[in-house]
Structure formats: C-alpha cells, structure tokens
C-alpha cells in the first residue's frame, strides 16, 4: 500500500511538472510570437506591389470555397469573396452535394448558367456534375459535384482552378478585402514560399456591411467569448510563434494560400482523414525536405478572415472531437518524421511538441484530475496539496490566456472598447474553470473515436446571417 501511495504521489508530481512544462513552453512560444508579429508587420510594409493593378506580372489566385448545406450564408460569403481588392483572381464555389438549396440560391442570385470548362484530372475527386458561370461575374465559377467531403471538394476545385496560387477558404468565412494582397507578400518576399496561413478570427458579435467587417465586437454568448480567447491564443499567437521557428504544422482549412503546383505535386488533399488541412501542410514539409528542395511555409499575423464559431455546446463538442481525430490521424500517418533529425526542427521539436502538448494532453489532464481524487481519497496527498495542485494548473492556463489577450492589445487591438477587452480577460480566467475540463473531455473522446476508426465529419449547424448587413 505504501508503495502504491508513493507511486501515486510521484505521478501527481509528474503531472504537475507536465502542466508547468507545457504551459511554460506556450508562454515562451508567445514571446517569440510577439517578436515575429513585430517583424512580420515591418516586413509587410517594404514591398510595394507597384504594378499589381496594371500588369500581369504577379501571381494570380483561385479562391476555393467548398460548400455543403450552406444556403443560409452562401450568398453573403460569395459576395464578400467577389469584393476582394486583387487584380487577377477567380472564385470557385464547390457545391459538395448539398442537400439544401445552396446551389439553386447561387444560380438564382448570380444568374448563373451551365458552362463548359475543361477540367484536367490532376487530382482524384468525385465526379463533377456541372460547372456554372456568368459573364457578368466573369471570375465566379460554381462547381456542382457529388458529395465527397471537404478534401474531395477542394481537390475538385484545384482541378477546375487555373491560377498560380490556390486560396482554400470555408464558405462560411469572410475575407477582409486586402487579404490576398497581404498573403501575396509572403510569396513576394521569398520565392521559395509554397504555403501561407492567415489569421482566423471570431465573427460572432461583429457587424458586417457589404461583405466587410464594420465593427469588431466580442461574441454575445459565453461559449463564443471563450472561443474568441481560444482563437487568439492558439490560432493567432501560437501559430505566429511556430512561424518564428519555421516549423508551422497547421494552416487552418478556413483560410490558407498554397502554390497550386506544389499541392498537385504532393497529391492534393487527402480524402480519408478529417484533418486534411494539417495533413496537407505536413505532407508539403515532408515532400520538400525529402527532395532537398528549399521551401517555406509561413504564417502571417495580419491577413484576417472572419469565421462563425459554433454557439451550441454539442456542435462545438463535435468540432473539437473532429479536430482531435484529425491531429491524431495526421501525427500517426507521419510518425516516421517524429524525432527524426532528417526533418530538422519540425521533426525534432514541433511534432513531438504537438504529440505531448496537444494530442496527449487530454489524457494527461483528465488522468491528473482522476488521480488527484484517488490520491486524496487514499491519503497519498493531503487536501492542501490537491488544492494547490489544481490552483497552479488552473492559474498557468489563465496566465497563458490573459497573455494572449494582452498580446492582442499590444499588437493588433482589433477590439476597440476597453469593455470588450475586460470581458475577454474575464473569460480568459474563467475558461479554465469548467470549459477547459469539458474541452479536455471532448478531445479525449476524439482520441477514443480515432482509435475506433471513426472518420465522420459530424453535423455542423450555422446560425443565420452572421455576415448579413
């Protein structure tokens, strides 16, 4: 019994150490993120793109927006995509076998008719039923295809696209008008750039006029506000920090620009995974490193796309479960890169970090809570220890979240009102009490589902008209 108590004690201390190391690493990452953000903002002001609007000498972009049952938001988001300030781009909406009126709404609103467009079979995808266009909107194409899920739709879109770069976006997101120019900067600054990720921010609560964000507000619901903090912490500063180390592993499926040829060379998006965005990025890393070709995959903190986040617990749970399955699947597929010096800092540093700090964290975190209870019950630790343990774990999470809100303050300051910032800081504190544990549970279930081989997407319902004026 005494040995068991000793073991429990040590495990508790180890778990406590894990919390310190992981959160400490994130705080260090955040510091580098701040450095990188400052640098990136300065660099972006150097190149002028002088001839962008009067010559054909810059890279052109195909925006690919897969849509599945998006009838509520498809017109607004398509209008937003058509209003971008860029000289040479096309918008390809891929209706991935929607069961609602997504296609008909597009046809009616933009007065589309069926056109013939040659589609080379460079990537495998489900058959395309028809392509629609209209000369009045000469850069808009709608592809109607048999359902094959997001990766399949994107592959079909890549086949249809004809520009140098592809910009994969979710059809329920809204891009800021100058976003393509900002993303192009990464390709201008470095000719070896093959992919660039941009920032995804929470649209809930903001007001939009004619496809542009007019007023940035925080979401009105608790769950939305917690996600606003999460998006700042993970998607903005986390990824900018990884960019500093040239080890970015994820470009959000909601917003990323890729070199079309590079994507085709690696075989496009993978069909049988729910983490197709991360998987593609890691496959690009792998391809270029194995071939010994110089390349860069960047994350820029300035270009922003706005996305509607789930405001129901069940939908959010399904989303996070899917993300965890995607992460597990991707790390498993590319396990050969793990701790492999051949892949540089990516293999030695970034992938193990994702394994221990992201993939295994729900197991460790939940075990920590359970073992703490058992240890307390068996008397391996006293109440004071348990309380201190919990307080320390929660406080570390709080510091991390509050720091991310503060970094936002020091850099972008998208939220105008002090009230909004104070509310976000409040949620940065309270997300660690309850939400974090629920989140860990969703992710834990995601791992279980991954082990069971579950590759379903899960139904995602959208609220009506977030982007409507």
């Amino acid at each position, binding site marked *: 019994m005494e040995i068991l108590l000793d073991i429990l004690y040590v495990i508790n201390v180890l778990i406590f150490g894990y919390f310190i190391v992981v959160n400490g690493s994130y705080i260090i990452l955040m510091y580098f993120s701040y450095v990188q953000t400052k640098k990136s903002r300065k660099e972006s002001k150097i190149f002028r793109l002088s001839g962008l609007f009067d*010559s054909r000498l810059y890279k052109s972009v195909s925006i690919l927006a897969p849509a599945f049952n998006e009838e509520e938001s498809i017109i607004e988001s398509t209008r937003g995509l058509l209003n971008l300030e860029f000289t040479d781009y096309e918008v390809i909406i891929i209706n991935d076998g929607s069961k609602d009126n997504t296609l008909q709404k597009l046809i009616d609103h933009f007065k589309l008719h069926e056109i013939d467009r040659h589609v080379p079979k460079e990537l495998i995808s489900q058959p395309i039923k028809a392509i629609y266009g209209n000369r009045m909107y000469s850069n808009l194409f709608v592809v109607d295809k048999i359902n094959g899920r997001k990766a399949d739709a994107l592959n079909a879109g890549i086949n249809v696209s004809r520009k140098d770069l592809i910009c994969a976006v979710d059809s329920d997101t809204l891009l800021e008008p100058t976003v393509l120019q900002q993303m192009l900067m990464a390709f201008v600054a470095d*000719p070896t750039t093959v992919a660039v990720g941009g920032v995804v921010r929470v649209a809930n609560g903001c007001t939009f006029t004619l496809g542009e964000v007019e007023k940035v507000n925080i979401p009105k619901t608790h769950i939305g506000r917690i996600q606003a903090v999460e998006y700042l912490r993970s998607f903005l500063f986390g990824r900018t920090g990884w960019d500093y180390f040239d080890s970015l592993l994820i470009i959000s499926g909601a917003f990323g620009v890729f070199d079309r040829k590079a994507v085709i060379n690696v075989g496009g998006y993978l069909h049988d995974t729910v983490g197709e965005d991360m998987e593609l990025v890691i496959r690009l890393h792998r391809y270029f490193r194995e071939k010994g070709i110089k390349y860069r995959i960047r994350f820029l903190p300035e270009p922003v796309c706005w996305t509607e986040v789930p405001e129901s617990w069940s939908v959010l749970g399904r989303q996070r479960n899917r993300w965890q399955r995607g992460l597990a699947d991707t790390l498993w597929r590319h396990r050969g890169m793990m701790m492999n010096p051949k892949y540089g800092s990516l293999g030695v540093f970034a992938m193990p970090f994702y394994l221990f700090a992201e993939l295994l964290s729900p197991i460790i975190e939940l075990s920590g809570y359970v073992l703490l209870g058992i240890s307390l019950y068996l008397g391996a630790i006293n109440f004071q220890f348990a309380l201190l343990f919990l307080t320390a774990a929660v406080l570390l999470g709080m510091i991390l979240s509050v720091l991310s809100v503060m970094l936002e303050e020091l850099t972008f300051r998208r939220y105008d009102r002090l009230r909004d910032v104070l509310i976000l800081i409040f949620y940065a504190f309270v997300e660690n009490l309850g939400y974090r544990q629920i989140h860990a549970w969703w992710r834990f279930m995601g791992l279980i589902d991954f082990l069971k081989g579950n590759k379903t997407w899960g139904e995602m319902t959208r609220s009506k008209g977030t982007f409507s004026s």
Partner: protein
Amino acid sequence: MIDYLNSHAETIILVVVLILAIVSIIVFLGAIYSRWIMNLTKKKRRNIKEELSEYVVKYACGDLAFKELEKRLRTSTDHQILLSIINELSPSISGTERDRLQLLLELPVIEKFFMGQLKSKKQLEKAKACLYLSRLKSIDSKLFPHLLEYSAEEYSILSYASCMTIIVHGDDSQKRIALKNQLLNENLSDQALNDLFVEFQDVSGGDFTSEAKTIMGFISEKIYSHSRTALLIKTLGELNYHESAEFLVNEFLQLSSDLDEPLVAESLITYMPVFASEDTESNILERLHLVYANSEFREVREATMTALGMFGKEESIPILKWAMYDQDFYVRFYAAKSLQSFPGILLSSMKPETMIQADWDDLIGEVNSLNS
C-alpha cells in the same frame, strides 16, 4: 528524490502557486493598465494628429512657412506623427504640394533618425531607412556606395529596398548594377523584381529609351537563369517598351530551334504579335509554323497557337487545324480559339477524326463559353 519531494512538495507547490498568482495579478493588471495607457496615448496622438494635419495641409498649400511648422514640432512623437501624415497624404497629392511635403521628410530630426537606422546592425531597419531615402527629393552621393553594397546583400528585403532607392536617385550605371544584383539574387522573387521594374519605368519621366536599353542589355548578357530572362522579356512586353521591338524580334529569330527549356521561347512568342513589324512578320510566322508549332514543350506550342491567332494570317490556318490533333488540351483549345477568330471558319465542322465526341464537346463548349 521521492523522499525530498514528499517532504517538500507542498512547499514547492505553494511557492509555484504564489509566483503564478503574482504573475496572474501582474498580467491582469498589466492588461488593464496597458489598455488605459494606450487609450490615453491614442487620444493624445489623435489630438496632435488633428492639429498637425492642419499645419501640414496649410504648409503643403503654401499658406504656412516652413519655419512656423518646424516651430510646432517639439517632441519625437510630433515627428513620428508628422511622418505618418506625410505617408498618408503623399499618394493622394501631386505637383508643388507633393514637392513641399517631400521637403518635410528632410527635417533634421527625421533625417538623423533614418541615417542612424541606415547604419543599424538590423537589416530590416536598414531596409526601412533605404525606403525612407527613396522618398526624398535627392540624397547625398556619399550614400551610394553603401546602397550598392546593400543591394548585393542576400537578404532580399534589404537588397530590394536599397535597389528601390538607387532606382529613384541613382544614375544609369548605378541602377544597372543594383538591378543586376537583384537579377542574380536567388532569394528575391520574380514578383519583387516586377516591383522594381515598374518603379524603374515610373521614374523615367516618359522617355523609356534608356530603361529599355538597360533591360535589353541584361537579356543580351545571357548570364541569368531562364526564369529571370523570361521575366525580363515579359517586363519589356507587359510594360510596353516599344523601343525593344526590334531587339525582341531578333532575339526570337536567333532563338535555337532545339530548345532545352520552354520559358524564354514562350515569353518571346507571347509578345511577337505585339512587336512584329511588316518586315519581320513573315520570318516570325515561318519560324512559328515550322519550328515552334511542334515544339516538344507544351507551353511553347500553346503560346504559338495564341500568337498565330493574333497575327490572323490565313497561311496559319492549316497549322492551327493540325494543332487540333495535339495531345495537350490547351494547345487544342488555343488553336480552336485562334481558328474561330478567322472570318468564314466554322469551328463546329472541324472536329479531328481521332478525337472522341466528349472531348470535342468539351473543347467547343469551353471556346463558346468564352464568347457567350
């Protein structure tokens, strides 16, 4: 170790928790304090900006003397704000007002700051200083050796910015050296080079002879990569350097029939219809018909079919019809598109015997979609 942890764990955790609690409070209060300070600063800066904007506009219009404006500038914040006002106003004004505004950039405080940055150890700061210099009316000739040195740096941002400054202020020979450095710099993208060439043309003041000569000189040197040479050709074409017409046609006519890569030939062929003269047209067509219409490179055949359509000579029709049998869709597509531009040609009756109906429908459909 376990014994030590057993006996000291509570103390260790207590210390950690205390530290974290203190840090949490600092971070929380820091966030509120920073917002409060930033709001104050923002308000103060907005007031200064409003006041200074009025001064600057009056000065630019000639209603206020330079000395009076200078007297208003007391702190470094004033100078920073002045700089941002100039940055905002510059693109929207021209003529004398712009010239007067440009003079403000030469205020000793601003100039001293950027001159210091030019010698900074940080390359990005040097690049920013270079861009500042590019906006001045003139710069000290002693700076050119530094700028030329920077233009040869591998760090593309610095080499780009210094080259931009040399393009604005340098003489022809300095511009040539700086641009050459960029062409040889593998870290600089073709798109960044486009920027420089657009600026290179913009500062010429309308007569492009010297600029065209410089670019043609680069092409003649034959020392750059195929991609860079193709870019130079596209620059001459896209930026309408008609002075280079004869040169480009000669380059095309002297191009080897046995290509080892497609980029240079493709870019030359693309601009032949624009730059050909009556005297050279038949020679160009002959080479297009005999050599490039059956190039092993798809890109070259595509460019050839497009060019033949733009020339619009009936003698090209058999070549275009023959290209309808090409294995590459886009060669067939451009051939079909070009054929359609000839009067009296009924494209729908030209289906190659070997082509299956679905592919033919695909091709015709796409050509017609463009015209519908």
